[in-house]
């Protein structure tokens, strides 16, 4: 992921900081250039990156000026490191706790997102994940648009041995969603996952349909499923999904590829919503939990960066 990759590049950049006799503006600029290059190559939003650069500079300058000559050279380096890390943490950690499914309660989770980003696959993975942890889990296929959508759910749910609901003839996704959720609630299912069609902000009817499905099933948590390879369109699309569906969590898929997921990180920053899982393959168990805090702590454990948190 972008931060893991950044960890390595930052290490190199920061060790050059350690080698520099004085930390002045030139050194800071060079360091920031390296950090920003890594972020841009990972698809983090261009505006976010220049904001980060600006914020770090302002912060560092302010600290340098207020403490004047009292600041020892070693401490100046720490000020720089800390400013950079705080801003990176800020990017990926909105400081919001995602919803946690409760036992003995019908937890409704609705998956939304752009076309082909991995919703249907992820719905089955989620069902498997919660099933393994003792939740009675099931999937409702409320995608009546995509060719073969119900077959896809049927086949993958069967493979995963989870219950599913859908229809070959009903064409109204709102009706199917409502029926399916009502049926599974009656049958005392604990995690009810509603899969929806892919959609995008440019087609307002598709967004309206998503809002209606949401009204019909009253999800406890709506999840935005986002492809790790998305570039600069991530911010506008995720904002639009946030405005209409008010999702409470993000799942980033296809992290088994080469993509660093910077677009997804821009979605986190744009919508102040945490990532909860990473999809890491096409198989049913290719799902990794993601929590910003432990991830960042681990990242901060990289070589030279260690000890930073003590300052």
């Amino acid at each position: 992921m972008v931060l893991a990759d950044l960890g390595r590049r930052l290490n190199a950049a920061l060790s050059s900081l350690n080698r520099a006799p004085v930390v002045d503006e030139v050194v800071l600029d060079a360091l920031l250039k390296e950090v920003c290059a890594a972020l841009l190559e990972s698809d983090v939003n261009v505006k976010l990156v220049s904001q980060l650069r600006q914020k770090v500079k302002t912060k560092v300058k302010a600290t340098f000026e207020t403490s004047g000559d009292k600041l020892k050279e070693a401490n100046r380096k720490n000020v720089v490191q800390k400013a950079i890390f705080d801003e990176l943490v800020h990017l990926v950690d909105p400081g919001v706790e995602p919803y946690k499914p409760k036992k003995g309660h019908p937890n409704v989770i609705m998956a939304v997102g752009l076309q082909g980003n991995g919703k249907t696959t992820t719905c089955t993975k989620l069902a498997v994940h919660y099933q393994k942890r003792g939740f009675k889990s099931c999937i409702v296929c409320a995608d009546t648009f995509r060719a073969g959508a119900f077959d896809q759910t049927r086949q993958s749910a069967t493979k995963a041995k989870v219950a599913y609901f859908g229809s070959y003839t009903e064409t109204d996704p709102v009706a199917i969603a409502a029926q399916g959720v009502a049926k599974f609630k009656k049958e005392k299912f604990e995690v009810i996952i509603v899969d929806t069609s892919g959609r995008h902000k440019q087609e307002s009817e598709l967004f309206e349909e998503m809002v209606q499905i949401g009204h019909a099933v009253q999800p406890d948590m709506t999840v935005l499923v986002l492809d790790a390879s998305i570039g600069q369109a991530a911010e506008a699309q995720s904002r639009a999904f946030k405005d209409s569906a008010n999702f409470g969590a993000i799942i980033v898929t296809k992290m088994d590829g080469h993509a660093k997921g910077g677009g997804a990180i821009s979605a986190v920053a744009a919508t102040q919503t945490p990532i909860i899982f990473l999809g890491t393959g096409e198989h049913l168990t290719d799902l990794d939990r993601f929590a910003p805090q432990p991830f960042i702590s681990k990242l901060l454990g990289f070589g030279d960066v260690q000890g930073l948190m003590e300052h």
Partner: protein
Amino acid sequence: LGSVLARLTGSKVLTQEDLRPVLEDMKQHLMKKNVAKEIAEKICEGVEESLVGKRVGGFQSASHAFIGVRHYLMALIATNATVRQALSTSITRILTPKTSTDLLLSIRSKLSSPLSSTQLRLPYTIAFVGVNGVGKSTNLSKVCFWLIQNGLRVLIAACDTFRSGAVEQLRVHVRNLSMLGINGATDGKGRVELYERGYGKDAAGIAKEAIAFARDNDFDIVLIDTAGRMQDNEPLMRALAKLVSVNNPDKIIFVGEALVGNEAVDQLSKFDRALRDFSGLSGIGKGRGVDGMLVTKWDIVDDKVGAALSMTYVTGQPILFVGTGQTYTDLRQLRVANVVQAILSD
């Protein structure tokens, strides 16, 4: 202002220093339009090379120091305009196809080439390849619609034998396409069929059978749907290369999303390389590469169309089609001028 303009008669030879800030802005601008960083940098380098040492007009002589600020601004505007022009030229050059994009012509010339009396005519074959979920199967169906509109008989080969629902997805498309009225006729029956052998089988073998079936049953075209795969997954890339080397399709179309960011470069170069390296019977790099691109989800990116530029830059191959939606008619030819305009727009 008029009097100032009147005095702007000088000219100047552009230096790297003049260009640096403008080019830095330009790079940022290209990246905002979703051009991959590496490609944005290369394009800027190209523009710089083409401009350093060039004489541009619109500069004022230094003696008019009292209008220093205006002087500076006018110089900047002149530089900007020159750079913008050079950028436009450069992008246009990258996007303009170097080989023919007339697929119908290529199909018709194969189908009408002379045969000996004992030979059976082989169908024209097109393989659709790319990473997961980009729109291969959907856009294959759109291309199918376009081909049958043009009076051709199409067989779709269901060679994604892995992803749940992949075969049924194509079956639904074939059913829809056979019901659509085509060129005045009431339905398209017999114009399109599906060749499928279910799941779990070897894709290369199914493609081979499908081509033989098409040959024996007088189909003009075989469209081969393949499973999505990550470009770093070597076993899957080898399997794709095998499909290519066994069947030697007439066209290998890489399907990529307009949404994709920096990955555009890695996806395309690795698909191209893996196909070349693993499909060649006579050694590394001797096999077939990607012949052209189909860029999907064009309707989702507004004016952030930079992926098209990254993709054409990487391979030098043309964009044969763009996908602009989820229905059969949402398939277009790339309009280079429109793309250039979208990329240059603020």
